[in-house]
């Protein structure tokens, strides 16, 4: 296939077992299909993966009171239509060289790389 995908447990999390809790995982995104991006062809965008459930791990400092209350409802058997989910709560930017109708453009794209995860 044209797309390639590489996953590695990032260095700081390698000690823990897989899927122990919500955390940042290395994920390379292929930009071949983004026809207006010239450089890079791929980059490490990361993803947040793992379960959100009690007891909340100290590895996930970023959860809100709202999340804790939703999880409490679940614990007591109240069905939630949308369970707390492990998502990026902090992103970083990425410099991209792309082509536009005006020519070639160097642009800092916001929110390209997941940097921190949390249960929301």
């Amino acid at each position, binding site marked *: 296939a044209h797309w390639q995908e590489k996953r590695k447990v990032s260095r700081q999390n390698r000690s823990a077992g897989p899927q122990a809790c919500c955390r940042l995982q290395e994920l390379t995104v292929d930009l071949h299909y983004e026809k207006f991006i*010239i450089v890079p*062809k791929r980059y490490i965008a990361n993803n947040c993966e793992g379960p959100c459930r009690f007891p909340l791990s100290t590895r996930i400092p970023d959860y809100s009171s709202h999340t804790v209350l939703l999880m409490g409802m679940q614990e007591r058997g109240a069905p939630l239509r949308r369970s707390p989910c492990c998502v990026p709560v902090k992103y970083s930017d990425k410099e991209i060289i792309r082509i536009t109708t005006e020519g*070639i453009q160097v642009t800092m794209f916001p929110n390209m790389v997941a940097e921190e995860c949390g249960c929301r």
Partner: protein
Amino acid sequence: PSHARSQPSPSHLCWALGEGRLGSQARSRCWKKDHWMDGATMHPRAPRLLRGLCLWLSLGLPGTLSWNRSCVFYEHPHNLQGSMRHRGHVLGGAESSTILCNSSQCCFGIWNQSHGRLQAVMQGCWGSDRDGCDSPACKTSPIHTMGAILQRCLCHSDLCNANVSWLG
């Protein structure tokens, strides 16, 4: 000191000095540069000089050192918005020059391909080593977009982006 008399190779020296004084981060920084220093002829008072150099390096002085990755720097004067100049220190004021990278060991190049010929559009330092900068040589891959064929590469040896070494 003992290591001055035994004349160890500069790489070991730098390593030992780094370990003793500046911690693991400094050590790995010195370690990376060994191949460069191995080629130099060492003067008897080299250890002291080296210690100064290691320190200087380890303090992370701005990109004015030849240990930084050198890339060809060129930006086509037309049809270009923005610049990659901030990714290093450009030497000389000519249209095409050398840039010493400040945030990576990776060069990039973009060429416009028309009628079988390549014309440089942009060359310089890429900001990250982790965006597929795996090859020491500039092996391009094409992108067909906006009615043009562009060839682009990332590479990680000095001035590797001067020319295309393998056309994709």
